[in-house]
């Protein structure tokens, strides 16, 4: 049976569209003011027109098709839970500091205590930006590096076995996916997908 071709709509409701376009225009205008540093009327007017024009030009890129698991309705890139994201960032920065120190410790020891392995787990976000935040957060935190993200399946390279277990412990969610999941709303439980090709020793 031929699979029906998936129709993806890229159109937002008008109110949301206007709201997020305005948000982007404001961001861009603030960016312009910081870059230019001149508060004369001429520059402000040029800046506002530029911000407006860029918002219009880049409109095709600010709308994303949503994960089909979450209903398939499109969503704006700029329609993020900004406050929760901001509250999440200090914790991420602290994790980054800790991970850098541990990485420095690993690198500077004469006999490097590394035991690399690749793990996989699955997590779905209702908002696609969640994938970006989780992937970058994994890259920045202790001993883990996002290698691939495909359809919510994360392939992560870990330097040590302990870090692999901290990210995706058996039978429950790791700390990092749980926190990003809190930021971006409900998400499915993490599933450990067993390694299919070579690493036979880990379950």
């Amino acid at each position: 049976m031929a699979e029906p071709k998936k129709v993806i709509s890229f159109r937002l409701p008008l109110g949301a569209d206007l709201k997020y376009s305005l948000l982007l225009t404001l961001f861009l205008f603030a960016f312009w003011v910081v870059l230019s540093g001149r508060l004369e009327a001429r520059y402000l007017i040029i800046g506002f027109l530029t911000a407006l024009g860029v918002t219009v030009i880049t409109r095709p890129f600010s709308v994303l098709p949503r994960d089909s698991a979450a209903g398939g309705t499109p969503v704006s890139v700029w329609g993020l839970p900004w406050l929760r994201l901001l509250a999440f960032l200090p914790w991420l920065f602290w994790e980054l500091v800790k991970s850098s120190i541990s990485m420095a410790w690993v690198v500077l020891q004469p006999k490097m205590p590394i035991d690399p392995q690749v793990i996989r787990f699955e997590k779905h976000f209702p908002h696609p930006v969640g994938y970006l935040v989780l992937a970058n957060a994994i890259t920045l935190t202790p001993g883990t590096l996002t290698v691939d993200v495909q359809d919510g399946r994360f392939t992560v390279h870990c330097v040590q076995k302990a870090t692999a277990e901290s990210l995706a412990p058996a039978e429950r969610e790791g700390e990092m996916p749980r926190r990003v999941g809190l930021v971006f709303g409900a998400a499915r439980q993490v599933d450990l997908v067993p390694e299919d090709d070579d690493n036979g020793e880990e379950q």
Partner: protein
Amino acid sequence: MTYVAAALMLAGFFLLLVGTIGVLRLPDFFTRLHAVGKCDTLGMLLFIAGLMVYEGLSLTALKLLLIWIFLAIANPTATHIFSRAAYRAGLKPWTRGKEGAG
């Protein structure tokens, strides 16, 4: 305030150095990327934060903040893109069990 800036810059420099040493010493591509993704990102962020403190509250500090934000998004993304490209190109991660220590 100057001492805070100097301390931040020194910490950043130390982490950049650790990133460099890690890239030199670690055994394979993916572990090297670990050094890049963490130590280098944080090193650069700390360095720019130090310069922001050194500059004081001014327009230049705000522009430095822009660089800070750009690098905080772009650096992990670039690291991920490298690892993904290498993985797709068929580079196998080094493991301790198969090839032994060394």
